[in-house]
Each structure stands twice: as structure tokens, then as C-alpha cells.
């Protein structure tokens, strides 16, 4: 349990010592197991991913952490000045958008977990039945996942526009003072954004669960129905638990999606006026003309620390599982 390297060791610790002792007299055998060429190949196969990982993940992460303690305009390197904790105090006390952003991220997580993910599961279960045109429905529900940011923006603009949008037209309020201002009203627009996010998330979850459902042994279901279980019982008692590995993936994806929620609010109004999200704040402060690298990095580090919690839980669970 202590290190992942133990995972590849098939024998229990007790037998391991004996194995090593027994192996000693057959020394040439051990050498042949890993020839020089093998070592080189292994070295390259491990080394290149490690370098890529270092260059694109660890070094930028480390630099972000370091930059979050500096003031920098993003121009010459000589302009970097130490700032201590000033950026963090700006984030926590001065920036009026930070705490609303945290609340919105939590709301996002709850909404995805309670509405969007179960909806995806429902779609998957329905489409897993032998219905006509199942493949077509699958494609339709999966399309939102593949659409580009700009297109998503245009589509929802058509729905939500106050005077010319479809939604207000259907409600019969378009063009009247009673028309709901889906984007502009700061107590409504977060829900509008969440519906748009659900539209994407449910399709994603559906595809994953469809794969999971295909993987459930049909004989389990058969046995359940022979024992007199009805459809609901079969699903919740037999099928759903049998999909445990997929369930964990879904939980992680839901959490990660809610943390990196960004695109929908960005196309609406760049994450202001009731649509504040941490990731949108990171982008606001790191990219573009309003660049303020120290503060943006501080936002990014905070998001990283929050993300580490579910990731750590997930990883420790996975490794524990595989060991036994």
C-alpha cells in the first residue's frame, strides 16, 4: 500500500524473500530477463513521458506557484518583483468576485451531481434497450460534447435572448416587459448556464454509462429475473453495483467538470454579473489585456489546491483497489 511499485509484485511479501533467496543461484536467468537493449527501451519509454510530464505539467505548475508570490506585468523577466502574500490577500479580501465564484463552483458541482449525471445515466439506460434508432439518439445526445465553444455560445444565444429568443417566445413573453432576462438577470443567469452545462455533461455521462452497461454480464440480469427481481430491483441491486469502476470514473469526471466549468459562462459574459467561476477568474487575470500574472497565478494555485482533494481521494482508492 505504501508505494505503487509493489503493485507489479505478484507474490505476497512473505514469499518474496524466499523468492529472492531462491533466485540467487540462478543468476544468469535474472540477467537475461532484462537485457541491455530492454533497459534502453524501457529507459526511453519511461523517460520520454516523464520529460513530457515535467515540461507540460510539473514545471508550469511549479512556476505558477512561484509566480503567485510575485508581481509581474508579463513583459520582461526583470520586471518580476517579490510580493509575499499580497496576491492572496487581494484574492481573499479585495476581490469581490472570489467568494461568489466559490459558491457558484459548489452549486455547479451539486447541480451536475444531482441533475446532469443522473440524467446521463437515465439516457444511457433507455438507449441500452433494444429500441429502434438507438445509434441515432446516441449521436444526437453526444453531439454537444463535440461542439466548439463558439457554436455553443450561438446555440444558447438563440434560446435565451430576451426579445428574440426561443424560450421567451415559447413562454409568450418575448418583447414584453415580463420577458425573463436569461443572461442579464444575475439571479437567473446561473441557472440558464447550468442548463446549458447539463446539456453537454449528460451526453458525456451517457456515452460512458453505455459502455459500462455493455460490459455488464447478461447472465447476471438473467439470474436476477429468475430469482424474481423486477426491472428496478435488477438495475439498482445488480447492474448498477456491477458498474462500480465506471461509477468512480463518473464521480471524478463530475467533480472535475464542475471545477473546470468555464466555457458556457465565458461565452455568455466572460464570467461577470452573477456568473463568476474560479476558472473564469483565472483566465480573466492571466490572459488578455487585463493581465496581472501574480494574481492570476494565485487564483490558479487555489483552484489547484481544491482540485487536489478529489484527485487524491480517487487515486488512493484506485491503488488500494488494485492491490487486493
Amino acid at each position: 500500500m505504501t508505494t505503487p511499485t509493489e503493485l507489479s509484485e505478484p507474490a505476497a511479501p512473505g514469499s518474496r524473500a524466499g523468492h529472492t533467496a531462491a533466485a540467487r543461484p540462478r543468476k544468469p536467468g535474472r540477467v537475461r530477463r532484462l537485457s541491455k537493449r530492454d533497459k534502453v527501451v524501457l529507459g526511453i519509454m519511461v523517460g520520454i513521458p516523464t520529460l513530457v510530464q515535467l515540461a507540460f505539467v510539473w514545471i508550469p505548475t511549479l512556476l505558477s506557484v512561484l509566480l503567485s508570490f510575485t508581481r509581474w506585468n508579463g513583459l520582461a523577466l526583470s520586471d518580476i518583483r517579490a510580493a509575499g502574500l499580497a496576491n492572496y490577500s487581494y484574492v481573499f479580501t479585495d476581490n469581490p468576485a472570489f467568494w461568489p465564484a466559490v459558491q457558484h463552483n459548489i452549486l455547479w458541482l451539486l447541480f451536475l451531481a444531482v441533475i446532469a449525471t443522473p440524467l446521463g445515466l437515465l439516457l444511457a439506460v433507455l438507449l441500452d434497450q433494444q429500441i429502434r434508432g438507438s445509434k441515432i439518439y446516441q449521436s444526437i445526445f453526444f453531439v454537444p460534447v463535440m461542439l466548439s465553444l463558439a457554436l455553443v455560445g450561438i446555440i444558447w444565444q438563440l434560446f435565451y435572448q430576451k426579445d428574440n429568443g426561443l424560450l421567451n417566445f415559447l413562454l409568450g413573453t418575448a418583447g414584453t416587459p415580463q420577458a425573463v432576462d436569461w443572461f442579464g438577470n444575475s439571479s437567473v443567469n446561473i441557472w440558464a448556464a447550468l442548463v446549458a452545462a447539463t446539456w453537454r455533461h449528460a451526453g458525456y455521462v451517457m456515452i460512458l454509462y453505455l459502455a459500462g452497461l455493455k460490459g455488464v454480464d447478461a447472465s447476471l440480469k438473467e439470474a436476477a429475473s429468475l430469482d424474481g427481481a423486477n426491472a428496478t430491483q435488477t438495475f439498482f441491486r445488480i447492474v448498477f453495483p456491477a458498474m462500480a469502476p465506471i461509477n468512480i470514473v463518473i464521480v471524478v469526471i463530475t467533480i472535475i467538470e464542475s471545477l473546470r466549468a468555464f466555457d458556457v459562462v465565458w461565452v455568455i459574459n466572460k464570467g461577470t454579473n452573477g456568473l463568476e467561476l474560479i476558472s473564469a477568474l483565472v483566465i480573466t487575470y492571466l490572459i488578455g489585456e487585463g493581465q496581472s500574472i501574480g494574481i492570476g497565478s494565485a487564483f490558479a494555485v487555489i483552484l489547484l489546491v481544491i482540485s487536489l482533494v478529489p484527485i487524491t481521494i480517487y487515486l488512493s482508492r484506485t491503488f488500494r483497489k488494485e492491490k487486493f
Partner: protein
Amino acid sequence: MSIHEDRPANGTFRPGLDRRTLLKTLGVGAVGVAGIPLLAACTGGSGPGATPSASTSLTFGSGSSDDVPKAAYKAVTDAFTAKTKIKVTTNVVPHNDFQNKISTYLQGSPDDAFTWFAGYRMQYYAGKGLLAPIDDVWAKVGANYSDAMKKASTGPDGKMYFVPNYNYPWGFFYRKSVWAEKGYAVPTTFDALKTLCAKMKSDGLIPIEFADKDGWPAMGTFDYINMRLNGYQFHMDLTAHKESWDQKKVSDVFDTWKALLPYQNPAALGMTWQDAAINMGRKKSGMYLLGSFVTQQYTDKTILDDIDFFAFPEIAMEGQDAVEAPIDGLLLSKKGGNNQAARDFLAFMGTPEGQDAYAKVDPSNIATAKGADTSTFSPLTKKCAETIANAKSISQFFDRDALPAMANNVMIPALQGFIKDGTVDVKNLESQAKALYAAQ
């Protein structure tokens, strides 16, 4: 020497060792520099000691990506090429990308000349040494410009950096037919404006059209009330953060604005300026405080001819002296400073000839050089041009005069919050301003 040889050659040189210094090196016969073989290939016929080199091409980066301005700049480069035989290679970048990536752009391999704005947005990069000063160009074209234009083109070190192309005033736009029908008169004082608004409201109009989903249009209202209340210099000092936000003068601006808030379109936060312009075109609202680019939204000639304009009424000081009229024009990158052809191009932009070439294609803006052709101006454009010409001081709009981080990250949410519930925390504005200006 063509552009194709020029760019890779520059790319392989070490930073700080540009072509100009290499030419000098060649001139005194110093041999052994790594770049010499490349240099020999690319200098061709030009003799030693040619500084700046007499090249026959330049690159031009343009953020004017919309159809009309794009075609207008093409007309300028074509006219320049026809006149001087200098080839211009234009790189058009979508304007949002161009603005957002300007820092990286200027530090990477920028084009020789590029489109940009006057104000803090220009001075900042000039101060960081990323632009080439063009005093020699101004010696040629300086007589074409007013003092206000010259002031707006000067960098923090007193050198000239910017060649203005066009500008456009902010003010109240309205449909003449609506006003004639209801018998409204142009207000010149703030009280008259409020009375007019109340009358419009009782007539069933939205008195002041307003849109702020994108955040920046509300800055125009803030700027005007601030300048009319506290003067032009206070606007400049506040945007440069020489004045504190946490003071009565600033909260007075918001208090004054509060009187107008009930008359501005209550749905502003969900609308873009285009939506609002359409509303006014449909005679749903009485007037609209925006830049003259609002007319781009009216393709119907009858509506376009029905649009008129008046300056923001006076409130407490300086009458109607200050006008918000952002200037767009050209800059020279540091690298472009070594290219005489690029200098010639900027000088061409500063002549009536160059500006006419632009204005012929894009007539919604106002040429800045004296002597530019005004005979084709519509009455509205003429009025706009007069307003700017008569202005004692010209501001550039909040997001061009202030630190971009302050304008984008602080002001936009603050103004949207103010529009929502009429409150703003000036203390918080000040503490945010302190943190952001300290980082520059």
C-alpha cells in the same frame, strides 16, 4: 531583398543583435559574427552604412478584422504601394485576439507597423521600450495634426510614437423624427436632461438606451459624468491612479449617475450594444449614449439619415469642453523602427492622401489629419467632426486611458454591480486599484 529572406534571417539572430547593428558591423568590416553568411545573403545590393536600411517592403499587422475596416486598410496599403512601389504584407488578426495577445505579439516577432490605440494603452508599451519612437515621421506630418492629437500621440518620455488615423466621438444619438414628433429639445444641462428623460418616460419610451452585457459600454457614462463633474484632468489622474478612488469626488459621480439610472434601459445587463442600437432604430427609446460607431448598425438609409447627435450636457465644471473621442491609428514596433519603408508608411498614414484612402471605404469614422477630404461627409459625420475639432480636451475612453487590468477586471464587474442595484464600494475599488497598479 524580399520579405521571405528577411524574416528567417532575423529569426536566427540573437536577441539584441538586430539587422541594423549587423549592418553597422559589416560597415566597419568586423568579421566573424555568426550571422554574416545570412547577412550577405539578405543585404544584397544595399551598401554599407545604410541606416535605416533602404528596404522596399514592410509587414503590417492589423487588428481591424471586420469587413469594412479591413477593406479600408487594404485601400491604404494599395495606395501606398502604388505611390512608392514599396510592398506591404498585411497580417490581419481578429481584433479581440489582437488586443488580448498584444504583449506576446510585441515581445515575439511583431510586424513592422501595426494598428493600435492612443492613450495609456499606447504609452504603457512605449514606456516598456517595445515601440519605436517616430519623431522623424512627426517632423514630416506634424503640421497635419491639432495639438490635442499631438498630445495623444506622445509617449511618456516625450517622444512621438503614434500616428492617428481616425477617431469617433461619444455622445447622445437619437432619431430626429421621434424628437420632432414629440417636440423634444436638445438638453444642454444635466437638469434639462433629467426633465427630458422624465417626459420621455411618460411618453412610453425608454429614455436612455443602454447595454452592458459586455461590460465596457457603461464606462462611457461613467467617464462623461466624471469629466463633467470633476474635470478632464481628474479623469486622467484617476485613470492613471494618481488620484484615489476612495474619495468624495468619485462617489459623487455614482450619486449623480443614480439620478439617470431609472431612465436607462433596465434590461441593459443582458444586452449588447447592437441590441440596444436596434431598439433605438425601432423608435422604442429616446436616445443612446454611445460612440458614433452606433451608425454601423443601421443599414437602412432612411434610418441612417434620421440619426442625429448631441454632446453630453454640462454638469458642474468645464461646460461641454471635454469630448470622449478614442483615436485609432498606427504604431511602429521596435523591430519596425529599423525599416525606413515602415516609417514611410506611417508618414503616409499621417497625410490627407492616406486618410482619404481609408475614409473612402470606411466613412463611419472621422479622419484626423487636417486637409482630409470632408466633402463626402454626411451632416451627422460633419457634426461629429466639428464636436471633436471644438473640444478643448479629448479623452480616450476609460479602458484606453486606464490600466487594462483595472478597466477589464475591476471596473466591468463594479459597473455591472452598480447598474444592478445602484451601489458601488469605492473603498474596494481603491484597494483593488492599489494591488493592480502596483503590479505594473
